[in-house]
């Protein structure tokens, strides 16, 4: 499937202070893609996501949304883009002083003119999509880690955004919920036409939903490959990538 370019990352270098984490990242996320960011723990996946959504400035390089150079655009344009992005943070990042319903409702109250009744219905619907129907009045501290992740997803999709960023959505979920989540992501793409960027290590998800991916290599501090994960597994010559995509069980499979 060929899609037109939507988010373009050019020569991106990211660093905390003088400590460079990744350099020279180049990849393109097409409209309607489910794009996977993968790589070892601590290699900078979350940081890359933060740069793409405008929370952290890159040390060098550019991020384009369509024709717009995100980091050099005027704040209003930037805000406009960010409003169309739904984000699930690695920690869930639910607002702890609000109930789940209020968490999901806040984006709706902020950007729509819906009546409280309509908002309540929408909130219940979004929560039931992630399997949390009935938990409307719970506070984040009263639910489990995996449930917080799911509530975070409900909040991210509250406004039916064009672009979704999920940081390890299935971490902490049981296999059945993880599968349901994959179905949800596919459905969001297929029915709403959303572009989804997912940070994940879950091999099953990577192959089930990803149609494009980038592999970050923490040893060389740059990306090792871009492309469809299935193709990468078939065609890649890089033992690191094959090792990753086969869960380290490469003995005997290496060519």
């Amino acid at each position: 499937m060929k899609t037109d370019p939507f988010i373009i990352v050019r020569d991106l270098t990211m660093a905390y202070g003088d400590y460079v984490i990744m350099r020279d990242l180049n990849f393109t996320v097409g409209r309607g893609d489910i794009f996977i960011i993968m790589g070892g723990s601590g290699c900078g996946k979350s940081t890359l996501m933060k740069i793409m959504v405008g929370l952290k400035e890159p040390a060098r390089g550019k991020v384009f949304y369509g024709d717009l150079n995100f980091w050099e655009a005027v704040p209003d344009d930037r805000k406009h883009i960010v409003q169309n992005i739904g984000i699930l943070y690695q920690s869930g990042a639910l607002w702890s002083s609000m109930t789940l319903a209020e968490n999901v409702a806040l984006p709706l109250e902020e950007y729509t003119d819906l009546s409280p009744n309509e908002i309540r219905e929408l909130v219940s619907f979004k929560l039931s999509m992630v399997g949390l129907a009935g938990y409307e009045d719970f506070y984040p501290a009263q639910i489990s880690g995996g449930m917080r992740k799911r509530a975070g997803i409900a909040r991210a999709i509250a406004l039916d955004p064009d672009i979704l960023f999920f940081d390890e959505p299935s971490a902490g979920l049981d296999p059945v919920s993880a599968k349901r989540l994959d179905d949800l992501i596919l459905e969001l793409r297929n029915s709403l036409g959303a572009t989804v960027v997912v940070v994940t290590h879950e091999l099953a998800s990577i192959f089930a939903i990803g149609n494009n991916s980038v592999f970050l290599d923490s040893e060389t501090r740059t990306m090792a490959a871009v492309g469809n994960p299935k193709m990468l597994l078939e065609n890649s010559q890089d033992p690191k990538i094959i090792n990753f995509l086969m869960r380290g069980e490469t003995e005997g499979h290496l060519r």
Partner: protein
Amino acid sequence: MKLRFNGPTDGVLMIRLSGNWQIGEDLSSPNEVKTKLESETDIQRVTFDTKELTQWDSSLPILLLKIKNLCSEKKIYMDSDGLPRGANRLIELATAVPIEKDARSVEENKTFFSLVGAETIHFLKSAKEMIAFIGEAFLAFIKFLSGKARYRRSDLFMTIQGCGAKALPIVSLISLLVGLILAFVGAIQLKMFGAQIYIADLVGIAMVRVMGAVMTGIIMAGRTGAAFAAQIGTMEVNEEIDALKTLGISPMEFLVLPRMLALVFMMPLLCIYADLMGILGGGIVGIGMLDLNMSQYYIQTKEAISLNDLWIGLFHSAVFGVLVALAGCLRGIQCGRSASDVGNAATSAVVTGIVSIIVATAIITVMCNVLGI
């Protein structure tokens, strides 16, 4: 004797390990190996004999890793066949991912001047941050006045309750005692002149003009300022603030504004209440110890305090409200990303709050003096 050497014969050094090789035992140090490798120049291979080794734990792989590093430095081949299988596996795992050299934060040798420079830069940076923060808070307040600020009413009411009604017990206790102490100290002096009745003036004016406001300010800095910093700091740690920002909601309006408003509303009220409690405390000493009667004390107090004093006291308290709220929220927003950072933020909010309260009191007092009020 746990570590012995055989050889070297024909360039092969055999290291014999024996006994219990566990943490807490009296173990031979790897330096023995080092000296051995350095003193003998013709070693090409190191082998191990562990037949007499009875038990081992992590201390064995640690030793072996060190030997391995020594060997690779000296280009000596280390033959690990003689080692226990498990120890070999552990070493493999430990060396599977190469050491991240950049990951260690480098502690440079710093000279006095570079330290002074770094401190100065840090100070200027934090001063700049503080000024920017105050500016943003002011803008948020203007937005509130024009009715466009985005915050949750319920947050405002919760905060008002938390820093208003719930602070009453401690404010009562402290103010009552402060009034009592003031009266006690004054009583001894005034009694010498037979001017006991002026105790009412002393306590009344002192409480209403500054002490009531300062005491509530300090209580609120410790109680509410610290709480603000911890709440906002925790939100920073949990990425909740990031989540607000990407939603296009300004943390200034959403988090700082309601807290600031709550304190600015509640501090003057608490201050009036503290004034009353202080006067009550003074009254207890006056009536109980100095044999003044109640109506005498009441009338004397009423005559002593002018409306001006009250306004000045209220002005103090409103200023303190802003200062405590700003200090708490600023430290919260500046909070790092770990749990200990939250603790530091709370501590530093209290310190900043109290220091700024005292400085502000000094400034206002001097100003009142100059203006003659």
